[in-house]
């Protein structure tokens, strides 16, 4: 079929390759800059090249009680929020995909609505509402906020798997006298497992990245890592944040490797 390739095709191909290469470099190079700065021995951002090599900023990050407390709280909140929202998402998606009931569309819209509302607005609104309700504990406030923002992602991911699901398998199980609960646990759940894992991952990552909601709900003693980094960056711009970024990014890459090994990135992206 070589005859079908015209000159425009060749030009098009070259153009696409150039755009792709540019996009690729555009995505990767900035992280390289941060990696470099994280080894800068100077206590401020100054001109390149680096005068030496130092690991002091990694130490500065790892020895900071504020960042370490933040990390602990972030992981805890991210974990609980991801688990809770995924469990809710499984039931919500299951009933919305499988059953028809009055107000189903409305319910679906409500569940997905936090995606449309800017996170700053969600955080700002929750701050007022939870204060009026008399809720003081920052940890609980953060948890509520995080569950709200990660739930839509979990529901979307789980629903997507349930929609493309062969129902005859469930019917077969029911015909073979499995109870509905058994069918759900032994047939449905294992089959939607990729979607469930993806939902947990999405939810956890979204929670771990949030600044805009959390910043309204933290207190001086309870803060998440991103909010602590945000506050630090506002105050000074030494390479501690670079070191933190590199460690977090390394953690992310490890996470993705695990995802690739367990689920496969193709399936994760829905290919």
């Amino acid at each position: 079929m070589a005859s079908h390739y015209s000159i425009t095709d060749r030009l098009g191909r070259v153009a696409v390759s150039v755009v792709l290469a540019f996009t690729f470099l555009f995505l990767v190079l900035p992280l390289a800059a941060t990696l470099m700065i994280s080894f800068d021995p100077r206590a401020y951002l100054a001109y390149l090249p680096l005068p030496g090599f130092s690991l002091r900023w990694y130490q500065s990050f790892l020895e900071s009680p504020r960042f370490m407390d933040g990390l602990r709280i972030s992981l805890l909140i991210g974990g609980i929020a991801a688990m809770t929202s995924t469990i809710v998402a499984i039931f919500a998606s299951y009933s919305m995909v499988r059953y028809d009931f009055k107000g189903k569309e409305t319910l679906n819209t409500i569940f997905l609505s936090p995606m449309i509302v800017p996170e700053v607005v969600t955080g700002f609104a929750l701050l007022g509402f939870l204060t009026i309700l008399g809720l003081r504990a920052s940890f609980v406030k953060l948890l509520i906020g995080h569950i709200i923002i990660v739930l839509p992602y979990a529901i979307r991911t789980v629903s997507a798997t349930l929609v493309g699901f062969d129902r005859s398998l469930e019917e077969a199980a029911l015909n073979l006298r499995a109870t509905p609960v058994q069918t759900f646990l032994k047939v449905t759940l294992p089959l939607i497992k990729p979607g469930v894992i993806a939902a947990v991952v999405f939810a956890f990552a979204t929670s771990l990245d949030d600044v805009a909601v959390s910043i309204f709900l933290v207190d001086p003693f309870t803060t998440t890592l991103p909010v602590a980094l945000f506050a630090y960056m506002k105050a000074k711009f030494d390479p501690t944040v670079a070191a933190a970024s590199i460690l977090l990014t390394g953690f992310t890459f490890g996470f993705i490797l695990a995802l690739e090994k367990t689920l496969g990135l193709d399936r994760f992206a829905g290919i």
Partner: protein
Amino acid sequence: MFPFLGALVMLIVESFQTYIHGGIIQVSYSFTLENYVTYFGKTFVYYGFLWDTIRLAGIAVVISVLMAYPMAYKIIRSKSKMVKKILLTTTIALFFVSTTTKVYSWVVILGDAGVVNSIMMFLGFHQTRYLGSDAAIIIGLIYFLIPIATLALIGPIKNVDPLLEQGAMNLGATMTKTFLRITLPLSMPGIIASTLLVYAIGVSSFIIPAFLGRGLVFMMANVIYKRFSETFNYPGGAALSVVLVGTTLFMAYGIGAIMMKKMRGFR
């Protein structure tokens, strides 16, 4: 979901309350339009913030979708498994890299003593201030939005049946023609939906303008945060929030409806 809905209702109610200097959040039965009048009736400053938000997000979204489309297309249709894998891994990895890290990286690059300025000075140019410009925010937004846009575009492109493309080629269409006449139109509704999703995310960005705008360029999210962090003017922030959400929804639905109508006209 109860706290979320409750909070939104309260936000709307609160936006019609009088701001008491130094006061805390309160619910009374008063009703006033003064918050809206202060921001949108007396001055044009806030229209400026709103317009900046829509404009910066709009430009960034269009560019990121244009850059993300070839990525998504290659991830689905490339003949080389290696290319597919590299692009997909990069996209997912970048998707999960924290936003704080992304912003920090761009401050390192565009900062006064950053990478670009180091190179420029080495080449004999003067130091230039890049942060605090529209361009800095747009670049930061694009960087943040490309992985999201790529993942969002994978679905629509995948849904185009490769057999249709094959058919067009067999009937003598060139690759370019096949792409323009088959692939692009068939994936268009999905592209529009993805673009609107990316726009909704872009328009509400907070950390990116907070650092790359350097207090010179603001997006609405930053303005709302300022009401909280500087003056603790809850009713004022509430009114701004209502306006932001209202505008976003209106634009998303408006653009979506118009585009979808146009699409139907095409086919």
